[in-house]
């Protein structure tokens, strides 16, 4: 009985989580008339692919998706590459510098992005990075890095120091110990951080809006917003179709690495 209620609760939770996606799918298949019905139905009465035809016909969703993918993958890998050694140093070394560094990482999260957007734009312009995906990757890495660093140093701390000491007793130098002992144990944490960085970059709108100018370099969030008008009015059908299509790469990414993510989250949760 208890098990049944657990499954029922789990099912309800799943429905709760999936509701926006299912509603988006349903909306994307409805005609404008059906969308304006006073009694909305889950299953479209006259399913249509016209919204998908409009969304893909009017906007370069495939190109924008590809650019978003490049930016998100590049940003997430660069973020982890930079954050990992820094996280190790912060987790393993003691001293005033460590406290200052960690404090600074936290402080950097306090600034509202809108405050720094103009100075950032001017810096990007001086570096000739406006209107390029490289520039956007640089911005995403910069702004994802503090939280990624914070996440990763938690994972490093969860790896018992004694394991490295045991490796040292066996004759391994510090680098060898890190490569052979720490790195494999950190893999789940790295995956979780990669995922966080990927999603942050994939969804990011404001920086992309000011950094990217030409239509042929714009990313997916900038393309999706073109289906909306003033005062919250939107072309719901094409917007739902395009948004659903934009969600699919994230879902695939999650599906591929969810097993590692799960173990990663647990690894970070308990200090060894």
């Amino acid at each position, binding site marked *: 009985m208890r098990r049944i209620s657990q499954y029922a609760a789990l099912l309800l939770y799943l429905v709760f989580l999936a509701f926006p996606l299912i509603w988006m799918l349903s909306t994307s298949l409805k005609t404008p008339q059906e969308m304006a*019905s006073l009694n909305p139905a889950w299953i479209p009465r006259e399913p249509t692919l016209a919204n998908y035809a409009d969304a893909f016909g009017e906007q370069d969703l495939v190109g924008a998706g590809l650019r978003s993918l490049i930016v998100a993958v590049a940003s997430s*890998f660069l973020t982890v*590459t930079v954050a*990992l050694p820094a996280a190790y140093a912060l987790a393993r070394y003691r001293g005033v510098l460590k406290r200052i560094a960690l404090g600074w990482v936290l402080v950097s999260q306090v600034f509202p992005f809108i405050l720094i957007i103009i100075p950032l734009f001017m810096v990007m*312009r001086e570096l000739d990075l406006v209107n390029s995906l490289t520039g956007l990757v640089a911005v995403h890495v910069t702004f994802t890095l503090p939280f990624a660093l914070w996440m990763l140093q938690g994972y490093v701390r969860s790896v018992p120091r004694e394991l490295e000491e045991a490796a040292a007793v066996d004759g391994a130098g510090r680098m060898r110990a890190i490569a052979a002992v720490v790195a494999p144990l950190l893999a789940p944490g790295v995956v979780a951080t990669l995922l966080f960085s990927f999603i942050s970059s994939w969804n990011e709108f404001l920086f992309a809006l000011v950094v990217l*100018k030409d239509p042929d370099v714009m990313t997916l969030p900038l393309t999706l917003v*073109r289906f909306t*008008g003033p005062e919250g009015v939107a072309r719901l059908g094409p917007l739902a179709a395009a948004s659903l299509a934009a969600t699919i790469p994230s879902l695939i990414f999650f599906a591929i690495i969810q097993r590692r993510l799960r173990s990663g989250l647990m690894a970070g949760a308990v200090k060894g």
Partner: protein
Amino acid sequence: MGKKLALAAVAIAVLATGCGGGGTGKSSDGPVKLDFLSLAWQKESVEANKAIVEEWNKANPEIQVTYVQGSWDNVNDQLVTSFEGGDVPDVFHNDSPALAGFASKGYLLDLKDKLPASLRDDIPQAAWDTVTFDDGSGNEGVFGVPFLQESQVIIANKKLLDEAGVRIPTPAEPWTWNEFGEASKKLTKDGTYGVAWPMKSPVNKVLNLALNFGGTFFETSGGKTAVKVGPEEKAVLQRIHDQLHKDKTADPSALGMGTADPLPGFFAGKYAMLPVGVYLRQQVAEQAPDGFEWVTLPPLKGTTSNQGAVSQTLSVPADSKHQEQAVEFISFFLNGKNQARLAKGDWLLPTSQEAASDPSITSPENGWDVATASAKDLVVAPFLKVNGYDEWKSKVATPVLQEFLANKISLDEAAGKLVEEGNQVLERYQR
């Protein structure tokens, strides 16, 4: 693992660089390249914009325009960053309230003496007034070309009107507010409300309609602007309130809705009439169930039929490197013929008098004849040139009007708050 990760990161970074686009593509040789930031978003409107740009590019190989589609929700953040950073679009689409702030900061080119006479003369002075602002140093300039405007009309269920036997108003003989009230009473029966007032954002709508009775909400004396709420300003508010709470001919549950939200109820016969902007006809035409008959009724008349209006505009940034060419492009883009195409695409009213007589936007189909005729009563919205209006609107007027319309405070209390708290806000902008 670290080594693999680093290699992957470098490889991807190189890939990103390769796909980067890099720079605006402007070169000192070859044609001048203009970036045109457009906010068109309806399918037909985007198509019309792109088609006009294409025609221009074909006819002007020396001045090539790149069409860039932006969005209304974020355009001002995008523009401020561009203005401050010095990397601006050469022509941009916006609305006149936004231009006031940009002009006072010196971001915009004054177009006063730069536009051809044909364009200047084709657009009435009332529309030019919506883009004439102080440039921040005490001089008035024209900081955009107004091209699309919106009036408030009434979209009604034809069958219910016929059944109730009410007179169908025409542009020559519009309903007065009293007739509208009486018609709403006749239409309210059998679970149907005569009218739904979607008032999620009530301020601009109330202020624009208040001009029907001469209500301006602001008065300027000795260089200082203050809020005023007298009998003229109260007239429309009182009438809407009466429909909601005295006559009970307006559905109170529609009050919190956005403009398009009552459409399902309208199609289902829950409301007979919707007082809304002309652009909503597009959604009605697209979403109405088969066989649903609807009509567009002309704006209501108080002591006059005047309504306040702002304009959609095209402007040139002061930092544009190709100002002359940008003005040339705007003059082409907004000629009478093209304005008719743009108005049709957006279901709005053109400012061009030539466009206003175009058969495509004067036919009875989808209420175009009534909508286009309503443009003659549009005057500059009284709030357009009030410094601090945006803050007054969001911090004072919106909550106060919502409380009043929800019958939580009296009209006198609402008026007192609008004036007292409003003047405190305006005071800060006039020091």
